[in-house]
């Protein structure tokens, strides 16, 4: 793959050089969110107004302007997951961990997000915890999966 180093980040290069989206992705990957100082630096480096950088950061779902939790919890809300009851699972996780959807718990431990289909519909409904997929979820299983974590034992396995 063709790459370039921008602001110390290794960024994939396109036919027209490095795009803002690609640069922000590299920053998000490293810090789990987009720190303001890097957005300012990105604007200077790419020679675009800061507002353009912010509009990109706000437009795409994979970017976050606030630090995300140490554990990333993603529930799939694709159609197949929806007809098999994903809404109730999201609610159960939200209740067990005390985290609202699309936000982070006050102790910075968990972030809960929904995505529109991860393409593993045969195992619907799905929950992804720190990149690990858990299929055929039920509200009951989801509750058990996180019960330990909610009691303050850090591991969510």
């Amino acid at each position, binding site marked *: *793959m063709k790459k370039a180093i921008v602001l110390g980040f290794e960024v994939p290069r396109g036919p027209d050089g490095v795009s803002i989206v690609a640069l922000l992705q590299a920053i998000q990957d490293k810090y789990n969110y987009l720190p303001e100082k890097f957005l300012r630096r990105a604007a200077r480096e790419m020679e675009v107004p800061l507002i353009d950088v912010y509009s990109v950061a706000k437009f795409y779902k994979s970017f976050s302007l606030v630090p995300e939790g140490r554990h990333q919890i993603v529930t799939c809300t*694709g159609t197949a997951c929806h007809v098999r009851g994903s809404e109730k699972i999201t609610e159960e996780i939200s209740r067990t961990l005390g985290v609202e959807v699309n936000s982070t718990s006050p102790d910075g431990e968990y972030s809960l997000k929904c995505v529109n289909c991860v393409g593993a519909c045969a195992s*619907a409904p799905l929950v992804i915890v720190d990149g690990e997929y858990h299929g055929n979820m039920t509200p009951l299983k989801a509750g058990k999966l996180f019960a330990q974590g909610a009691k303050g034992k850090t591991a969510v396995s």
Partner: protein
Amino acid sequence: MAPLPVKFKTKEDFLSFKQRSIEQYEKNRCYLAVCGDTGCSVQGSKNLYDQLEIYLRKQGYTENVKLKCTGCLGLCENGPLVIVYPQEIFYQRVEPEDIEEIIEKTVIQGEIIERLLYSDPVSGEKYIYGRELPFYKSQLRNLLEANWKIDPGSIEDYIANGGYAALVNAVTEMDPGAVVEEIKKSQLRGRGGAGFYTWVKWEECRQQTGRKFIICNADEGDPGAFMDRSLMEGNPHSVLEGLIIGGYATGAQEGIVYIRAEYPSAVEKLKLAIDRAEDLGLVGENILGSDFNFQVYLSIGAGAFICGETSALIASVDGRIGEPVQKPPRLVQNGYLGRPTVVNNVESLANVPLILRDGAQKYCRVGTEKSSGTKIFSLVGKVNNTGLVEVPLGITLREIIYDIGGGIKEGKQFKAVQTGGPSGGCIPASSLDLPTDFDQLSSAGSMIGSGGMIVMDDETCMVDIARYFLQFLADESCGCCFTCREGISRLLEIVKEISDGSAKPGQLELLKELAGVVKDSTMCGLGQTAPNPVLSTLRHFEEEYRAHIEQKHCPAGVCRELITYSIDQKLCNGCGLCLKNCPAGAVTGNKKEPHYILYDKCDKCGVCTTVCRAEAVIKQ
């Protein structure tokens, strides 16, 4: 020893490499194919593969028994799947505990392990060989067949199975016009949704001069669709070969694959495929000694459904927000960086090498007059055999759902099938005999779309489905057009009112009128098709809407505001399972005595129904 990588300078270089790859492939006839696709990984196939590797090494079998981590094998429902070659014995739901038996009995002695065989959910019949399964028998797996045979990380496997021959032949023997002509004869139509003829785009682009681009649209955003992901994970070289051929035919020297970030495994497989193709000189300068140069770039999406729309996609590749632009000028005149650009879907591109290899004439024999070839569908939802199916276009929905899919889960009643993602619609039981081609499904108020097929049973509420898609579209609308931004939100409000029982009579008429306005007055495909889920459910299931409004009743028992849970006092044995598991603490009662549900606390999550062994929970 794998053949040494060399940069091909002539056709002969390629052919001798191919010969060596075939010899190598033939030598390793005895192998285990373990499905490594995301679908099976979720069910533990990665661990299974690792354990198999350890076992083979420990027992000293690695010389004679090979292991392949393949792409999607199709029947995701019964994963993890393992196929034992050369016999092609098909094992399903394989656990690490089965490894020793599989190796010692099946591989070494050729014995069949009964309990790992697939058994038909309806007839109970067991099948030994994959091809005999009813699930595979009615399919025509032209594109997906290779998934069974090749390791997606190995370009040698792909070449040994006929890969890159079409590209080599095109570059060395055909001029670009002849390639476009062949695609024209094949009548290949875009598999991304619109069904536009591929050759038309290619020919227009070919006639333009100067710097041009070809983009592979791998932003498979439709929920419930994973055909493109499985193609890229299982056979990334086929997509890449199609892209390079497209570059040659259109005169584009730069190709971009725009892929969504939600598919990390597909991104990795594609990266590897591009690197390997570069190593062998199939991507780069002076490909096969010709004056054709082609570079491939990966552009990773950042999570926006609208970026599947081609002009929004191009804005995103350019690093801007994914807002569509008014057409014309069309992208083929003014696309990426203002240059002529062709955008093709993953599956369309994967079809290209097949067409050139076998000839357009043979390709056309499959499918219908106006929809040639095969189409991959992801058959999901309340169906027995969930998975990836490839069928000739024109096959009926009934054949797909019943013959291949094995019918509805738990013997329930079929209600509707949703095709075409958020732009598509729901097709009722009365239309099950419709042929799946580009034009017929549109006439039923839906579309083939990218190929997601979500089967719904009588426990699915159509109002809830309409609400679901409207919520999806309201979240994903870029907000550029007023009627899309505000219109969809207002549609959603009305459907929400219907679903919670607060809608007044007359709302259905308003819904229809508003849907028409949104359809007619938005700029891009997202807005124009946004009312489809509402309109198609209204068209076929108006009674269900009326039941919500007039009787405040949800016939499917889904809409929460309209249902209540209670416990049958005669059936309840007071075991306390519901009390223990109720997350809302809404169950009360003494041990060994019938329990009660407190209505004001109950949030209708349904956990009590799933845990109750006495079937005493009543949903009304």
